[in-house]
């Protein structure tokens, strides 16, 4: 199997070195850029499987890089940001980033996110069936099984679950979810989202209070993971 390629765009040399060692020891091929423009060039010439993008860059901002990538780069972009910057994170996710990590992050978490991103690149968006451990979703029959038992889901819960499944591992912002489920210009508030995520969790999770699939990203949105 070919090694997956990760492009790191970050101007901090200590972080670059650290990430290079971590990623190479986990068998990834690493390319490095220390500015936004260099990152865009390398992304175009190497077509990496995943981009790790720092938001604070010396030349153009990470948001600008995301906007330029949006037109032609279809793989995953994981942002690296600092804590307490939910607004920045939401903006970047709306600009096309697929996931984020706040510094300082743990190595295990970083590798897990990169692997999930690569898996997502490979999943066929046009599939009619998904299987996540004991969960099975059939889009054509509009049926969900958990451990071979049919789950009774409402229309909204089903749509929500399908949208999550299509975006496995990706962080979806409140706005993205509201727009998808209730349509553009929907005046629905996040309170409805809370309600449906709550009821969906009670049906699909073994322990809704320790969710393994439907993870809350505080102040940002939700992530569905296998």
């Amino acid at each position: 199997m070919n090694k997956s390629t990760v492009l790191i765009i970050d101007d901090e040399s200590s972080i670059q070195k650290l990430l290079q060692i971590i990623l190479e020891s986990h068998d990834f091929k690493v390319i490095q850029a220390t500015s936004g423009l260099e990152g865009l060039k390398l992304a175009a010439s190497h077509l990496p499987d995943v981009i790790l993008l720092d938001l604070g860059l010396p030349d153009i901002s990470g948001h600008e890089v995301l906007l330029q990538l949006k037109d032609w780069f279809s793989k995953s972009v994981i942002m690296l940001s600092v804590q307490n910057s939910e607004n920045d994170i939401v903006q970047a996710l709306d600009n096309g980033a697929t996931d984020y990590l706040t510094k300082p992050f743990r190595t295990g978490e970083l590798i897990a996110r990169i692997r999930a991103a690569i898996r997502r690149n490979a999943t066929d968006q046009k599939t009619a069936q998904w299987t996540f451990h004991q969960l099975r979703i059939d889009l054509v029959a509009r049926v969900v099984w958990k451990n071979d038992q049919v789950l009774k889901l409402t229309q909204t819960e089903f749509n929500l679950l399908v949208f999550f499944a299509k975006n496995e591992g990706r962080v979806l912002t409140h706005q993205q979810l509201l727009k998808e489920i209730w349509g553009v210009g929907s005046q629905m508030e996040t309170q409805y989202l809370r309600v449906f995520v709550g009821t969906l969790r009670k049906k699909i999770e073994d322990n809704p209070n320790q969710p393994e699939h439907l993870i809350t990203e505080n102040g940002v949105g939700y992530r569905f993971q296998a």
Partner: protein
Amino acid sequence: MKLKLSHQISLVLASVGLCSGICYLFESYLGYHAVALILLVLTSLIATSFDIVPVVLAATLSALTWNFFFIPPRFTFHISYSEDLLLFLLYFFIALVNGLLTVKIREAEAKARDKEEKEVTISLYNTLLNSLSHELRTPIATIIGAVDTLKDAEMSLNEDQKVSLFQGIESASLRLNQQVENLLNMSRLESGELKLSLDWVDIESWIFSVKNKFLGKCATVEIQIHLVEGLPLFQLDVGLMDQLMDNLLTNAVQYGKSHPVIRIEVGMKNEQLEILLSDNGPGFPEEHIPFVFDKFYRLPASKAGGTGLGLSIVKGFISAHQGSIELNNLPVGGCQFSVLIPAPTSYVNLLKHE
């Protein structure tokens, strides 16, 4: 609040005019000597809150008004009796000196207050530097020492020793991170720039995520959650709520037993979100309870690390939500933090959907 000079002058003109007018109406009952005393009181009142120019103006104006409208012969500045002339000069002198002295005293008081405030700030700053240099340098020293030891090829370390050094580096870095987080939060609070970013919160999933996150960094603690059923959604800043719960839990572990058991009860009281967090630790000495939420306050002779910022941040974040927090010792042992937060609620979560 201080008025602009032009406003002060207009107020002086208006009040002297009004006061003289009223006195003029009742002149026959009062007699013109009493009017002088009334005007003197007015000048003194003006001096207690106005600047020097309006005060001098009030003294001069009232003296002239008194002379012109009240001292016989009235409606002239001429004074017939030498006794009245003396009174007039004395009036002018007393009004002026009295006014000026009052202004001076006020200035001196303001200066003393400034100085006192500066001293308090300097002493707080020193306390911060002292506890910071300890709290930041200890983990840094641990990290540098461990790295030096691990790099030194001459040293023959066995596997256990290496693992222990790595664990030391890990926990020191996490501690550093926590301290930096607290400092950043403190400066957010101090700058007054803290804006709540409110969002609807499902209390049940929130409180369990708080528990799961904390267990992720501290596995030795037992956290029991008791939740009232049928709670509505609350509109809160979930980032701040997470931080303050984390600080309360950290505090309970730091000052608790080697096997801490923490009980969190969540419910509603008077339409407000109520969180009760109790532990099985030794409790707080009663005489220190009033001060535990003060900035930099630490229990005397406390062995546990800390900058004395954690609980003051908790209080700050709760105040940002217009809420309150109290600390009490429990009769059964241990202590209990009681948090009350008024927040908009929504019961859409309890409706039947579709």
